[in-house]
């Protein structure tokens, strides 16, 4: 009675293909090992002991964009760096997502001047903006969870 019967019932799970694929994409998202400025240090903190990003299936940073699903633009994007960021984004395979981490990447932050691109969304499409200068690791984690929620709302047709 009870347990064995219930275990037997769990042998088959019915779900939609979208949910299953989104679950897999969420649980094993590989970020690009990429940092620009101050926010990259907080991104490192997020991955390190105290905050442990791997709880969300993100411990595997890939240094090559070909193997990455997510680019976290962490820091100010300068005019000299902008073509490089764009090229990195182009080299990533679909499906791919972008988190703009920090004020500088989101809107230029305190630097409204000749050198800084006023928001990375001028060159690549951004899914989640994380505010802060630099954002706390908790804020970045919140941004990542927001992105995961967003991915659950997607269908595979979006990337077809």
């Amino acid at each position, binding site marked *: 009675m009870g347990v064995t019967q219930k275990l037997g019932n769990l042998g088959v799970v019915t779900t939609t293909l979208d949910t299953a694929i989104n679950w897999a994409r969420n649980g094993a998202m590989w970020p690009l090992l990429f940092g620009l400025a101050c926010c990259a240090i907080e991104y*490192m903190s997020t991955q390190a002991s105290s905050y442990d990003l791997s709880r969300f299936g993100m411990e595997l940073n890939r240094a090559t964009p070909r193997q990455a699903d997510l680019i976290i633009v962490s820091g100010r994007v*300068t005019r000299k760096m902008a073509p490089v960021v764009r090229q990195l984004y182009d080299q990533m395979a679909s499906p791919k997502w972008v988190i703009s981490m920090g004020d500088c990447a989101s809107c230029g932050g*305190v630097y409204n001047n000749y050198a800084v691109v006023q928001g990375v969304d001028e060159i690549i499409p951004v899914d989640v903006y994380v505010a802060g200068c630099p954002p*706390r690791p908790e804020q970045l984690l919140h941004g990542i969870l927001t992105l995961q929620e967003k991915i659950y709302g997607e269908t595979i047709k979006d990337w077809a």
Partner: protein
Amino acid sequence: MAIQIPDSEAQEFKWEGSLDELKGLVSERAMTGETMLLNMGPHHPSTHGVLRLLLELDGEEIVTCMPDIGFLHTGIEKNIESKTYEKAVTLTDRMDYLSPISNNMAFCLAVEKLTDLDVPARAQLIRVTCLELQRLSSHLVWLGTHAIDLGAMSVFLYCFREREKILEMLEMLSGQRMMGSYFRPGGVWRDITPDFLPTLRAFLDIIPAKIDDYEALLTRNPLWIDRTQGIGVVEPEVALAWGLSGPTLRGSGVNWDIRKAMPYSGYEQFEFNVPLGEHGDVYDRFYCRILEMRETVKILEQAYARLLKEPAGIFRSNNRKFVPPPRAELGQSMEAVIHHFKLWTEGFSAPDEEVFVSIESPRGEISCYLHGTGGTKPRRVHFKTPSFIHIGALPVMTNGHLIADLVAIIGSIDCVLGDCDR
């Protein structure tokens, strides 16, 4: 066979320059194709930021190494020209983002020298405490990333565990983990909180054993020694000629520490040694920084003992022409309201003179050149930063070494590209 993607937005990337542009920069052998030109960065996990290196390789050996900087040029110096002196402190935080407090210190010191503003002794003591905490946190990031570059993964996790504790303390003081802008002209923003000293005590109790742990992982590790000893040697004369500073210079055995040579903020009242290397290689620079961490703990112990005698008190100059009055005074004194209004709308004026100050940051010498206008904004601010100079000297250290050693050498000069490009 190349993958053909019809009807896609993929573009062909072509190098638009010609090899002639590199004449004089690379050896003649590169022109004939005998040596290989290889691009490293600006997106590379081991360049510690957005540094680009153009390498000329003979097999695995580096013939020439050409750093290409400016990928993080933010125009901070230009931005400061349109800010009042107090507001500009916020921008200086974001140059060398591993030791924002050192940048604050260099700038505040310059402003104080320009306006002849006094800093109370207790404020200087708080400053030294923060500076040394920041030095420790900066060295922890350096150690973690340097070790991860050479394949020792776990050191990174240990280092960041302790760094979090330092950031918590800095957050207690300034309300922000990294970019606190805690130092202001004339002292610090606010007094230390009641929690700060017990937390500092608890931290000082554990940190020496933690440094022992890092040393146990690396100092006598044969793999570590093989990768670092005899690599990237800089002779003392060469180091001085290239203007190296900080642990990168002291690794070569040159006894030059601005905290000792030109004391600022009351460093002359603290007892500490300046660790020196002998050979000027990657290992000596590594070991200098490890020893420096221990000296930092020594300074922190002395600062703690002195702060304990006076846990609350003066933390900023009382000169109302430069320092805004405390909030409580605003309801009682008309003069305080006027000062508050003037300082926060217009700022204070500094004379049309130029000053130059240097401090010892975790990376080396940060100098600030400041030229006032007689008004409330500076005419020109320039920072002479250690990373810029160290990256310039990179070819001296790398040429003739293997490409795998390049990663160790970049780690050992502890460059921060925000510091370099500003």
